[in-house]
């Protein structure tokens, strides 16, 4: 058991270190002096609002290009460890960590909620699609679900935006809360936030629902052939019990593995959905920063993405033995 936990934490640590190194290396591998390039790019983009000279100084100090590479690397790691991600060049002297943190709750809320809904709904639909005595009409769902799941998240977002935001305008099309709304912990604020979240969340749910349903359908079909399903029936258990505790429960294990593997795609998809709906999460902040060539903000967000995916995978890994009692035994 503890060997399993140590193993997973070790793996997560390796991934984090590699993510950090990639983040460190890529701007330095690219040809030319990164500082010159950044400055040129920023003035070309015209996104400059702060003090240019101060920003240039901050950039130089940040990259420490006159130092040996390993010193730069250690310095970089030290800065990250202190949660110092530098300052925004476009909006000098705002700190990158502030920008990133201000977007985080929006993204976590949107992505977490919509993933939970699509995973739960899709898993249940898929399981019912495979269950022999479920209504036949469910099986007809397969084709539309499959086709929609082939379309990228943000393309579905675009279509929903046009249909429910413009053609038949029943939902707000941009932002995370009503314009001019003062954020309070009261009901109008909550409702406003909820209403603005519907379209982005719906895009993510629609785009990923089919994949969950199809994966689950396949899993349940293979579970149906297992010996323990026959014994469950021979024990005279109710169909409901067989379906939930024997069928769905066992098919869920590989479904959770899928969840871990698809996290990257989910996050990428959600980022683009945020862009489409100008939703104030880190995806939209990334989009804005890219437009302004705000290099530290981009790097900070990218780093946060890598770290949060590593963290989410670690959490899934640690939850896994609770769902499948065999996992911990197998790996130790």
């Amino acid at each position, binding site marked *: 058991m503890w060997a399993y936990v140590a193993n997973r934490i070790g793996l997560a640590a390796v991934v984090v270190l590699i993510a950090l190194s990639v983040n460190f290396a890529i701007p330095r591998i690219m040809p030319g002096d990164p500082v010159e390039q950044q400055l040129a790019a920023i003035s070309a983009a015209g996104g400059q609002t702060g003090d240019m000279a101060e920003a240039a100084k901050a950039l130089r100090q940040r990259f420490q290009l006159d130092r040996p590479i390993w010193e730069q690397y250690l310095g970089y790691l030290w800065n990250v460890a202190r949660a110092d991600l530098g300052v925004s060049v476009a909006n000098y002297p705002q700190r990158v960590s502030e920008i990133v943190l201000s977007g985080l709750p929006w993204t976590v809320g949107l992505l977490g909620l919509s993933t939970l809904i699509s995973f739960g709904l899709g898993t249940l639909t898929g399981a019912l699609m495979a269950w022999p005595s479920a209504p036949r009409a469910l099986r007809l769902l397969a084709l539309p679900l499959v086709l929609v799941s082939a379309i990228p998240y943000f393309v579905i977002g675009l279509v929903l935006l046009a249909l429910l935001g413009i053609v038949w305008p029943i939902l707000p099309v941009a932002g995370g809360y009503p314009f001019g709304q003062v954020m309070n912990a009261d009901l109008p604020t909550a409702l406003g936030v909820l209403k603005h979240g519907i379209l982005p969340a719906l895009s993510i749910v629609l785009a990923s629902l089919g994949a969950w349903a199809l994966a689950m359908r396949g899993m349940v079909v293979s579970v149906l052939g297992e010996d323990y399903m*026959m014994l469950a*029936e021979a024990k*005279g258990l109710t169909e409901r019990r067989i379906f939930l505790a024997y069928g769905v429960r066992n098919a869920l294990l590989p479904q959770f593995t899928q969840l871990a593997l698809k996290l990257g795609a989910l996050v990428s998809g959600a980022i683009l959905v945020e862009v489409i709906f100008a939703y104030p999460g880190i995806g939209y902040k990334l989009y804005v920063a890219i437009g302004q060539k705000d290099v530290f903000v981009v790097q900070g967000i990218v780093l946060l993405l890598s770290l949060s995916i590593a963290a989410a995978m670690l959490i899934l890994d640690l939850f896994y033995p609770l769902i499948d009692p065999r996992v911990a035994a197998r790996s130790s």
Partner: protein
Amino acid sequence: MSRHALSVRSLTVEFATARGQARAVDEVSFDLVPGERLGLVGESGSGKTTTALSLLRLIRPPGRIVGGEIRIAGADVLAASPEELRRMRAARIALVPQGAMSALNPVLTCGAQFEDLFAAHGERGGAARIAALLASVGLEPQVAGFFPHQLSGGMKQRVCIALAVALRPSVIVADEPTSALDVIVQRQVLRTLVKAQKEAGAAIVMVGHDMGLMAQFAHRIGVMYAGRLVEIAPVRDIFADPRHPYTRALIESLPDLERRGEFRGLSGLPPSLLDLPPGCAFAPRCPRVVERCRVERPGPTLLAGGREARCHFAAEPVHAG
């Protein structure tokens, strides 16, 4: 109330295949008195497992029970509604499954798999009741807290036996209950099964392909070939004086300590169920075949001692060929 624990009449099961209906079980009839142990033997594909699973109506599409009658202590299994059938299972007729290694739900503890059995039949479980059941199959009470992957194959099969006798059914169906186990464990598990069956007062139908193992276990043996029950007789009689040539071939194929090295098997393969010969299904491989066997299907011949065989020459002993 019938005096039979189990009564099977003309049970017929067919499988829909791309090339037509395959009759996997063909008019099989037999009766069991309470506490009796019947061994069903035959090659793979002979319909013995299909027969056993039909008794619990566990045949899945493309298979279908197309005719016959099954009564457990008088209750009609084939006429039962889905809910009646569900209540009958485990309570009146229980299964000891074939795949000992994979027959228990991997995500539930053994105890939970007893509890859901009790709950499904409206009975109270509890640690003491489960511990007693486990003890009856030679397992410690702690096993209730274990997940299946923490148990050996033999222990898992003991848990399955305990599950089967938990509600004191009239009939236990054991489908090759020891096939996944090694030889020493096989004997232990069989002994456990017999002990539990005696305590529960149940009749048992055990499916297997090992005539030798069956001889030690059963009161009577039924031999199946190509979906038909070709002979059924008490163990002593069937070994001393087999009346169907196929039974004799099965007995002769057993390794014999006195005739070491000498092995007499059957030539040829069992026929395809889609393409059965018009007469006796065994005719193409039979050493004593005559023209009549090829055209006329032998009905059951009733013999002294409650024996029965489906051979035109069942009245005469089969001589060594």
